[in-house]
């Protein structure tokens, strides 16, 4: 009863158009009659009603139901015919593969049915022939005498019937019709990921409660709960209201897939071009960004109740290319202006043209950097040689020893000073202090030990500082190679004794 009320409520809420209503009404009446006959076991009549409904409203589900009815009365040929039509009309319907399998099974049943019929006819023919032959044989002789060799009546020919394979159980489908005014709205079931299509839409929705979502630009998005009742034709009509509070905005770029950011990139993109959607009326600051193109910062004015179309032209950002190879560069980080663009060796890495700081760094190797100017379209190759950075373990050890010694020296020096102060205080306060006072020996030992540690500390720290700043190995180098087809020419600085120069290397 509640489901009926729901249906009535829906029908009352959304008023159908007159033409739509007449055909639908007739279709619904035929469908409901067909369902009633099907329930009463009057399958043939039910099939007729479903086909009648189909004439009023060509919904594939009506054909499906008719096919089910024919299958019930073992009119497999008709059943197959309407299943085939159903598949043709709804190729993407849910469970279509099962229907196709059923069609194959029906083909088999039709064959068996034909074979069995043939066997029955052959048997009947044979029996008729046998009867005729018997009658001829038992006829009186011409002399009027009875035939002494009268034959007995032969037995009927046995018919061997091929057993039919069982068909899986099947039920008729319900039918749901969803239409809107104006038509052409996007229709989603339960969530916006499950798009059913565009209105008007008829099809099968599983029994139970669902939510339908209807969206159309310029109109308020509708989310409604519906209840699908078994063996019922559910007809839903929704009249969409125009959304006067929001502005419908369409943003396009001449090169698609540009990200659209609302004012700041930090909040994330609202989508990619082409993009359409509602925005609050008023001015909006937008950033339109696409790799390889200059970023556009603009302000649009979206007007409520109108379709606001904005088209932008993206200007290509000048691109240059960078390749890095050389000695010991494998796995080195290649940074442009502090940002890692690749891990060496790098081949034709895209970068923006202009002046950049190229930095190549690798753990355990001396980093090298160079300021470079890339013209649009440039492809510069860099031959890099990374040399090992000096080992700082010795320096660190020396620092540790130096600082530990310094700490120990300060502690011992403090102890020595404390003893000295104690001794002087005793003298000052009139406490007898002895020339063999063990504090004197202790203080002296502490003092000497402190100085020894200070010395050790000084030595260690000097070594540490020297080892920190000393670097006897060669620096890493970065040289630009000149591409001449497959031949590369490189200019390298050469240091030899007191002489300096440039070496030219040509690689074929």
């Amino acid at each position: 009863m509640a489901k009926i009320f729901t249906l009535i409520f829906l029908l009352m809420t959304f008023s159908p158009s007159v033409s739509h209503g007449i055909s639908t009404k007739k279709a619904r009446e035929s469908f409901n009659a067909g369902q009633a006959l099907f329930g009463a076991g009057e399958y043939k009549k039910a099939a007729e009603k479903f086909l009648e409904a189909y004439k009023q409203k060509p919904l594939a589900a009506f054909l499906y139901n008719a096919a089910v009815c024919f299958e019930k009365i073992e009119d497999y040929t008709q059943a197959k015919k309407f299943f085939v039509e159903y598949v043709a009309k709804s190729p993407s319907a849910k469970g279509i593969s099962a229907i196709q399998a059923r069609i194959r099974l029906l083909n088999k049943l039709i064959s068996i049915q034909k074979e069995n019929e043939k066997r029955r006819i052959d048997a009947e023919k044979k029996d008729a022939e046998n009867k005729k032959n018997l009658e001829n044989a038992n006829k009186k002789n011409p002399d009027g005498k009875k035939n002494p060799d009268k034959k007995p009546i032969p037995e009927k020919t046995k018919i061997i019937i091929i057993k039919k394979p069982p068909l899986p159980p099947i039920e008729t489908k319900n039918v749901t019709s969803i239409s809107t005014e104006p038509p052409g709205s996007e229709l989603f079931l339960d969530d916006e990921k499950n798009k059913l299509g565009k209105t008007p839409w008829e099809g099968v929705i599983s029994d139970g409660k669902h939510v339908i979502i209807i969206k159309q630009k310029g109109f308020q998005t509708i989310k409604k709960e519906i209840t699908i009742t078994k063996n019922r034709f559910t007809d839903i009509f929704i009249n969409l209201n125009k959304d006067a509070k929001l502005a419908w905005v369409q943003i396009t770029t001449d090169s698609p897939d540009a990200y659209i950011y609302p004012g700041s990139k930090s909040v994330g993109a609202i989508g990619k071009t082409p993009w359409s959607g509602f925005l609050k009326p008023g001015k909006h600051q937008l950033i339109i960004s696409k790799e390889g193109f200059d970023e556009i910062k603009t302000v649009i004015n979206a007007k409520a109740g109108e379709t606001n179309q904005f088209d932008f032209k993206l200007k290509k950002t000048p691109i240059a290319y960078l390749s890095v190879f050389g000695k010991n560069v494998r796995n080195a980080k290649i940074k442009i202006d502090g940002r890692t663009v690749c891990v060496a060796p790098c081949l034709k890495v895209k970068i923006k043209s202009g002046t950049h700081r190229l930095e190549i760094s690798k753990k355990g190797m001396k980093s090298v950097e160079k300021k470079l100017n890339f013209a649009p379209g440039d492809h510069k190759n860099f031959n890099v040689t990374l040399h090992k950075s000096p080992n700082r373990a010795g320096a660190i050890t020396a620092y540790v020893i130096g600082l530990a010694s310094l700490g120990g020296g300060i502690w011992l020096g403090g102890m020595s000073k404390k003893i000295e102060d104690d001794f002087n205080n005793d003298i000052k306060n009139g406490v007898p202090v002895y020339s063999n006072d063990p504090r004197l020996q202790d203080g002296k030992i502490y003092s000497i030990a402190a100085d020894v540690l200070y010395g050790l500390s000084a030595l260690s720290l000097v070594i540490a500082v020297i080892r920190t700043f000393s670097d006897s190995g060669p620096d890493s180098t970065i040289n630009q190679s000149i591409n001449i087809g497959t031949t590369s020419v490189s200019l390298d600085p050469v240091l030899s004794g007191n002489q300096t120069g440039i070496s030219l290397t040509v690689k074929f």
Partner: protein
Amino acid sequence: MKNLLFILLSSLAVISCDWRVFDDLKSEATVQVINAPENFGDANFGQISSHLLDSSGNKYQNILIIGGSGDIPLFIINFSNGEISKHPVKLPGVDGLEVSNIIPLVPYNSEFLLGLSSLGKIYIVSIDKNPDAENEYTGTVEKSIDEMENISGFGRALDIYQNSNRTYSVIAASDNHIHYFETMDSAGVDVSLGDFNLTSTENNTFSSDFIKITEFDDIPHLIVGGTETDTNFWSIQIFSVYSSLLEVVPEERIILKGSEAYPGDEVSTIRLFDINNDDIPDIIAGCGDSIFVFQSENDSISYSSVPDVELYSTDRSLGKSIEIIDLDGDGTMELISTDPGIETNGSSGEVYIFKMPFTISKISPAVTIGTPENEKLFGSSLAGVPSSEMPDREELIVGGLNTLYLFYITGFEGDSSTDDDPRNIE
């Protein structure tokens, strides 16, 4: 990098320590420790000490002789010129000395002369510088009394009187006797011996711990301190020796003795000092528990049987050693006494300083000097040496088990500042 290294090294140079400051502090110590010389061994250096006399009978203020029991049992310590120098005294032909008493004598033909007792023997020894070794002295036994080893405690107390004819009268105590050697002349011949027993007025036996011969009105008197063994109280007997000690007339004796009111069971030492300025020496006796002062009466050799002053320190046995010196240079003397046996924290011995003159009858110390760490028998001996830069005052030397301590009594009235400390020890 050079600047960094410069800063680093400069900083370390600034915070570095100068260990020499402790050498300086050592010389600023208010107590200079004088350890036994190496060849003295650990043999009682510091328990026996005495000043020496010059040929006029005056005391060498700056010179002490120390007696012990090592290979070289005698050492002369000179405190002259603000320095402390130690000089061994070798005694050829004398082995195994264990010095228990040193009596300074007036030298005749040598630099120093002294008498000493050791293990039942008594020696008169003249001492001169060793011409072959600048820092050494050589002792020559002028006289000796030996073959007394069988007498128990012979030499426990000793005094020697130099007669005008360069002979020596020797009085020594054993456990139960006083032995008198009347004519021990400087040539070492004709030594006549005699011994006698002293008894108390009640004829109680008497054990002598202290013997001293001194002159009252140019008449030699014998002062004997000891214990009345029957009552176990201290006792002092004074009598003249102008005739012969072999015949002591009891009625001529002055006897001072202890009682429940003036307890003490021995007489460790007696000092004679004219406290009341009547030219008659007053008696200051260390009697075990306290020091009792007997002042002369009627400007004569007579003393009240009751002490005039009692110097005490609670739970201490004062009087093992007594020295009277002007420590603070104020013109009046201080009396210094010791209790070497009092034990504190594993050490033993204390020194007590009493200010003089005595204005009340029962006086406690003005200053108590505690035992140096790990020292034993601190206060076994006492001596005073003049300060080289402040000659109007003396500094205190206290002997321990095997060490001497030269005290600059810092904080005691009269010490102006440690900056004035004249000592300079190597």
